[in-house]
């Protein structure tokens, strides 16, 4: 399946003015001296679409996002944002180009207050008015953010921290957003809010690259799905088709657990 690198969406033949906001082309990447994690992987995300990456633990999903946001420089391959080649640029440059990334797991600033965390989300913004508006918005969206506004983020419960993190990422309105398991550890209510926001982002024209282990739920929301295994795209296609594939379900998506 080495050659199985795949374009996912509609048009295979990218026109010079690329229809994709984010394009990862034949990426090979790994950590330090260690062996490759990504072995020739291509992912394309058009504007106004949700592309969902699913796959076993350790397949390299988070690594894909790190390459896309410039945290990890690929060993070969290209990273294109809106057609411009930004391979090898750091996260600051990528952010300037409109790529925002929400890390997997716990990345709140533990020893700063919730307020400081959220405000740092808008570090690159200068417009005071805009910042105030966004703060208002996220405080409404996640009650816990407002309630615990002045307490240290490290003292919140696991799920609350995830909520703060997601709220922080909503401070800017990027053109491409990379989300790494945004629903992990969230209760059903908060999970609902998060998916709702993701859909809204898409509707507002943002390109979303989503990694989820809550695969069925994520694929239901997504336009395109990509199954990753061992650093390669195993299968890709319209999300609905993937959901329907019984073999994929068994291997990657998990059936509904049988009742007792």
């Amino acid at each position, binding site marked *: 399946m080495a050659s199985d690198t795949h374009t996912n969406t509609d048009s295979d033949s990218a026109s010079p003015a690329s229809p994709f906001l984010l394009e990862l082309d034949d990426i090979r990447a790994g950590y330090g001296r*260690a*062996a*490759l*994690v990504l072995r020739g992987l291509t992912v394309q995300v058009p504007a106004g679409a949700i592309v969902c990456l699913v*796959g076993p633990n350790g397949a*390299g999903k988070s690594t894909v996002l790190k390459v896309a946001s410039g945290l990890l420089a690929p060993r070969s391959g290209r990273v294109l944002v809106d057609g411009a080649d930004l391979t090898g640029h750091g996260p600051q440059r990528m952010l300037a180009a409109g790529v925002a990334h929400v890390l997997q797991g716990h990345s709140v600033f533990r020893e700063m207050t919730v307020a400081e965390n959220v405000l740092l989300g808008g570090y690159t913004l200068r417009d005071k008015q805009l910042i105030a508006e966004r703060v208002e918005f996220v405080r409404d969206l996640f009650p816990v953010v407002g309630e615990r506004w002045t307490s240290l983020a490290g003292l919140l419960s696991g799920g609350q921290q995830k909520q703060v993190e997601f709220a922080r990422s909503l401070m800017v309105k990027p053109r491409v957003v990379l989300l790494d398991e945004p629903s992990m550890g969230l209760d059903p209510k908060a999970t609902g809010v998060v998916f709702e926001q993701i859909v809204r982002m898409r509707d507002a024209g943002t390109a979303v690259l989503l990694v989820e282990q809550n695969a069925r739920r994520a694929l239901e929301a997504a336009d395109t799905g990509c199954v990753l295994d*061992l650093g390669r795209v195993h299968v890709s296609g319209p999300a609905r088709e993937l959901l329907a594939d019984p073999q994929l379900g*068994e*291997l990657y998506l998990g059936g509904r657990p049988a009742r007792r």
Partner: protein
Amino acid sequence: MAPSPYEITVGIAILNYAVLSTSWNFVGGFTGYISLGHGAFAGLGAYGTGLLVTKAELPPFAALFVAAALVAALAVPVGYAALRVRGASFVIVSIALVLILLLVFQSWASFTGGSRGLVVPRPFPGMLRSEHHRTFYFLFAALLGVALLTWWIIDRSRFGMGLKAIREDEDKAQSLGTPIFAYKLVVFVVSATFTSLAGGLYALWFGDLDPVFQFSILSGAYMVLMALLGGVRHLYGPLLGALIVGYALEYSKVEYGDTPLHLVVAGLLLGVVVMFMPDGVIPAATALLARFRTSGETSIREVTAAELKERHGQGNGTDESEVRNSERSGSGG
């Protein structure tokens, strides 16, 4: 040709370093607590032995062991205070321990001799100097043997496994049932005792004690340097480190004797070790060897979910559920 007395003294100095860093490694290696103030226990052992010989008129080797017992007793409250705090605070406490003892031994001149130092009488009065050195050479070697043996026993024991778990994650170890505080305290006391024995033996051999040299951070730092250099996870790591550092110090003294560049040498050495081989020479060498032997890209496992499912299905698959679940491939890289 028999080694000259001078060569034996160099040998003793290196053995002494080896005992000290091996003793240090009981705490540093097993639990990961870095004590920069272990020199304090050596100093206490030395002064304890010296004072017991001169003030209490105990026979020298009885004094050595009584002093070690006293230091062990003292290590309990010290460990109790120090081991409550982790990381940086622990280091600070360990430094403070040396500095406070330095002040006490300097100020309490009526008892300790203060800055004038303390002279410890020779344990074998009639012995020729070269004989004296030879005897102590073997005594130090014996002490080193005992320390290594103890370390080895702990290393392979369940106790040692618990200590290593503490080094990795204290909360987790505790939740698995390891009495972390007791474990840390025990090993701390063991370490202090060996350090004190080394200090006491040194006092009997050398004879002149001065608080400035007995309670110096530098000596603690050398212990860390030697253990780290050799590799704290290995039985012979500190010994190897002591050989290298002891030789380097002697060499730099002979080559650059009339400048303080020996400090620069020690500093740079420590810096290089910390930066480039924090695990020490032994693991670095093994890793290098391993790299030559196996080529390029190996990872823990390179199988896809489908292959894995396959394997589990026919291998030791237990029941029907096994087949279904497969499992994500290992790390892809």
